[in-house]
């Protein structure tokens, strides 16, 4: 045998013995050497397949949750009429910090002793940013939401922190995330945090639109 025969190489790749003729050819043919190496490594990787590697169909609720989350995104983007609704709701709870942002940025050194009431990691929703962490803390001044998302790029706009209902049906603007790594937002004493357990940080444009941009960067749910 003197010509390239990929079928024979494939048989060798799945573990069949190599004929002397084929061996002689391969030893002098770079193309066949490459092909044999590639097919052998594919075959040996395939041989390592176990039952756990076999495709499993995800449960139906996975898609339902994806669909719901996207619908929420779209609704937040499109629902111009609800703007006043959210705004009023947030104002009623006394949480609107305003475009200027009155978040108290604490200095680590002078931070008073705090008790952590609840904590969640903030997981990246898109590929760009890394995650962060959000904590509800009990301080001598009352409850605060401590949000830290290190490594966010300089925004074209600003980052806004939100508290959302678990099903995203309602949300409250907590304030504008400061330039530092950490921002601390006071929470009103009467607020039912359990109604708004999801912490969300969005990228907002300077477009005068106070509603959520639907461009969420990180999100996490507090166990309350």
């Amino acid at each position, binding site marked *: 045998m*003197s*010509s*390239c025969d*990929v*079928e024979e*190489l*494939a*048989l060798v*790749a*799945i*573990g*069949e013995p190599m004929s002397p003729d084929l061996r002689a*050819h391969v030893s*002098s*043919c*770079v*193309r*066949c050497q490459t092909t044999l190496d*590639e*097919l052998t490594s*594919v*075959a040996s*990787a*395939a*041989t*390592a*397949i*176990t039952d*756990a*590697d*076999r*495709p*499993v*169909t*995800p*449960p139906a*609720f*996975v*898609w339902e*949750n*994806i669909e719901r*989350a*996207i619908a929420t*995104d779209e609704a937040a983007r499109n629902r111009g009429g609800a703007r006043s609704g959210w705004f009023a709701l947030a104002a009623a709870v006394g949480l609107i910090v305003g475009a200027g942002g009155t978040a108290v940025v604490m200095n680590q050194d002078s931070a008073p002793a705090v008790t952590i009431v609840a904590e969640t*990691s903030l*997981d*990246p*929703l*898109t*590929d*760009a940013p890394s*995650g962060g962490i959000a904590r509800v803390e009990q301080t001598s001044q009352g409850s605060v939401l401590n949000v830290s998302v290190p490594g966010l790029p300089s925004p074209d706009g600003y980052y806004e922190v939100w508290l959302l209902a678990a099903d995203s049906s309602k949300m409250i603007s907590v304030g504008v995330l400061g330039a530092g790594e950490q921002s601390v937002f006071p929470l009103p004493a009467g607020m039912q945090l359990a109604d708004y357990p999801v912490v969300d940080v969005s990228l907002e444009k300077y477009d005068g639109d106070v509603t959520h941009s639907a*461009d*969420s960067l990180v999100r996490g749910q507090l166990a309350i």
Partner: protein
Amino acid sequence: MQTGNVPQTSGATNAESQGVRVRAEADAELASAFASGHDVLRAMYERWGSLVYTLCLRSTGNADDAADLTQSVFLSAWRGRSGYDPSAGALSAWLVGITRRRIADHWERRTKEKNVTTALVDAHEARTSPGADSITDTVLLADELSRLGEPQKRIMELAFFQDLTHVQIASVLDLPLGTVKSHIRRSLERLRSRLEVDSVIV
């Protein structure tokens, strides 16, 4: 170096090759529709949902975590769709890349949640025992294997997992030797290109 005839990859006129080509075209169509912002997430989910879920399941060993991660992968894909560049690679490879980052994030998070000693052991195990790369490869291969038609699937299962020779396979399945040989070659090539397309290094 031989300049011998290479008839094997040319003249892909048989039904199997056409099937592969049609699927590749469908994938490319999906990719360009996705890139231009159309709502094709459902089609993507139908095409790659089980792959993503299985990768997550295999890597975490936990169905709840796998479901959470799968949701987060497709939401990330949807929310980050403007970041997908079809010229940079296949949509499936992009999705697999997101999946692998989500899985890595998951382990990092788990590591942080635990105390330092356990965390170190876990991190070590996550890095060493079931390597992320080889998990991805075997799951990708299992996925592609499941998409082979018959008798290709039977043939490859017998070759890989029963260790039968092509002569034995031909006899078990009552097929001509030449048919078995050419199916083995084409199926191996198909598995190889699947790895080339989707086995991204993160």
